[in-house]
């Protein structure tokens, strides 16, 4: 393996990385720019940054001539360095502050929906998988088939009747309209993954617990759950990713718009008057990516395993 060849590979990979990340770089850039800047100079650095830097630079060199700037109401005022710096920072962060105000309720709704879903999927998925993996009883095989067969029904088949169902159950405009169907569908993949993991655990573990008189729930809490920690984070991340990205279902079931999650909320935002202010719009896109980015940084390895384990869905 020659060094020259390695450098060539690096060059190609860096080129494609940049191309892949480019839209997101521009997105972050636009968070701090006005519509006028977007229209007239697509590639420029935010004026608010340049201004802040030049004021800060001026302050450092001891230059204290007052600066003329437009305030929040658009009035031109003469300001000293400290006031000017504060105002230019306020201008630069206007988009994110406005965006946060709009998407904060969506974030909270997402947090509720994602948490309830992932807890339900983990608990039901692991409990059912434990029973399927460790016991044989009448109807065992039929039960497994019943569960696994649901994988062949695509969302497009059940979208309309599922809506009619949650509507007739009176669940429209509630968290349950999202959480219950998400758990119902999400647990199948979890059962599949958990079961193949539990199948590989040595029977001695369960045997000795049973001899000590432990019941199903004791074994589940004290042996199964602690042992499944490595696979648990994988299932959890896979589930969170799915729930996070689901846009259509929350959009349909929130006819009154009070329970929108981030995905459906972003779409709604893009159709309202806020969309005419690009800075707010792009700030909303950027802020909505932060929770999963934090999760990604915090749990890179389970994240990678979670994403690749999606392959089992086929």
């Amino acid at each position, binding site marked *: 393996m020659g060094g020259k060849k390695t450098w060539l590979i690096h060059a190609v990979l860096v080129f494609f990385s940049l191309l892949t990340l480019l839209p997101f770089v521009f997105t972050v850039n636009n968070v701090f720019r006005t519509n006028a800047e977007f229209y007239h100079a697509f590639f420029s650095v935010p004026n608010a940054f340049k201004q802040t830097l030049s004021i800060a630079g001026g302050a450092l060199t001891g230059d204290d001539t007052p600066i003329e700037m437009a305030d929040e109401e658009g009035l031109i005022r003469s300001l000293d360095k400290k006031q000017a710096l504060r105002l230019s920072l306020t201008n630069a962060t206007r988009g994110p502050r406005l965006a946060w105000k709009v998407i904060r309720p969506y974030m909270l709704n997402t947090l509720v929906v994602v948490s309830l879903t992932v807890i339900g999927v983990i608990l039901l998925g692991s409990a059912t998988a434990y029973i399927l993996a460790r016991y044989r009883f009448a109807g065992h095989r039929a039960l497994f088939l019943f569960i696994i067969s649901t994988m062949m029904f695509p969302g497009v088949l059940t979208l309309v009747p599922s809506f009619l169902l949650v509507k007739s159950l009176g669940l429209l405009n509630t968290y349950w309209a999202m959480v219950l169907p998400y758990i119902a569908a999400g647990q199948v993949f979890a059962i599949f993954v958990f079961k193949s993991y539990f199948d590989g655990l040595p*029977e001695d573990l369960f045997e000795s617990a049973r001899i000590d008189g432990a019941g199903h729930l004791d074994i589940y809490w004290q042996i199964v759950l602690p042992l499944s920690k490595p696979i648990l984070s994988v299932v959890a991340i896979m589930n969170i990713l799915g729930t996070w990205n689901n846009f259509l279902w929350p959009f349909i079931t929130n006819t009154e718009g009070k329970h929108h999650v981030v995905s459906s909320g972003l779409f709604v935002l893009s159709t309202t008057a806020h969309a005419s202010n690009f800075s707010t719009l792009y700030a909303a896109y950027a802020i909505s990516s932060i929770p999963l980015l934090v999760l990604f940084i915090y749990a890179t390895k389970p994240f990678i395993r979670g994403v690749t384990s999606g392959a089992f869905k086929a």
Partner: protein
Amino acid sequence: MSVRLQSPLSCYAIVLPSLVLLTTFVYLPVVWAFASSLYEFEIGADSHFVGLAHYGEYLGQDPTAFPSLANMLVLTLIAAIMRMSFPLIIARLIYALPTERWRYIYRIVFLVPIVVPGVAVQLIWADMIYSDFGLLNELLRGVGLSHWTRGWLADPQTALASIALIGFPFVGGFEVLIYYAGFSSIPESVNEASALDGCTGLQKFFRIDIPMVLSQLKLILILTLIGGIQGFENIFILTRGGPGFETTVPGLWMYFNAFSFQRMGYACAIGVLLFAIIFGLTLLNMKYFKSSEDLQGVR
């Protein structure tokens, strides 16, 4: 390695919540879909049995049916080609790097965009890349081709292609990881033998590497086909099927029939037809393709 139970009541009790949820929120809607495709009904109004009339109407009279099926086919095939080429080459290049450290870094770099909500990605492309003052038009103006500029998603000539090309350069982190796992599981003996035989470079890529990741390629293919047949969220976000019906796909038409025109039964019939196509593909997959359980490397 498991216990045989005579009185499995406690087992049934533990799996009961799972079963209740599955029956209610998966099986019931499935049955409901088939049943209501045979009825004409609106929410709050009387319904009456129409038999297979909805299927006949969609395949025989609906003017959107065949153009939208063609759109679906075009979008799905382009997606399949993109997802089976660019990420494959990138994964192979990452695999060729000599140090594990760099291989890890690049895999992470290509995976990071997965944290951006899918809706945001679509909207970013619509607002920032394809809009009047967006990246594409600005680049064209920059190189003196301003007569080529247009509203890419609004122009009937470019709308469908623009949707298909969202995500350029198509190096999805998921696909890269899957292919990379495939390359990693090629036994070292195979690599050594091919090196001894003087099989290197492109020749090795086509003769050895690609056959070794065939099951991964098939996996991505089937996932893309199934996703392409039932997916319409991106089109709903970007163009709502327009201009005219230029970018309409059957799934989107189903959505509009259900939620805009209140034709629930007709929408269910379209859903059942799409399911039939997907089901056919799944059967083909099971019969002619190896199952994904063979994908040892993926783990």
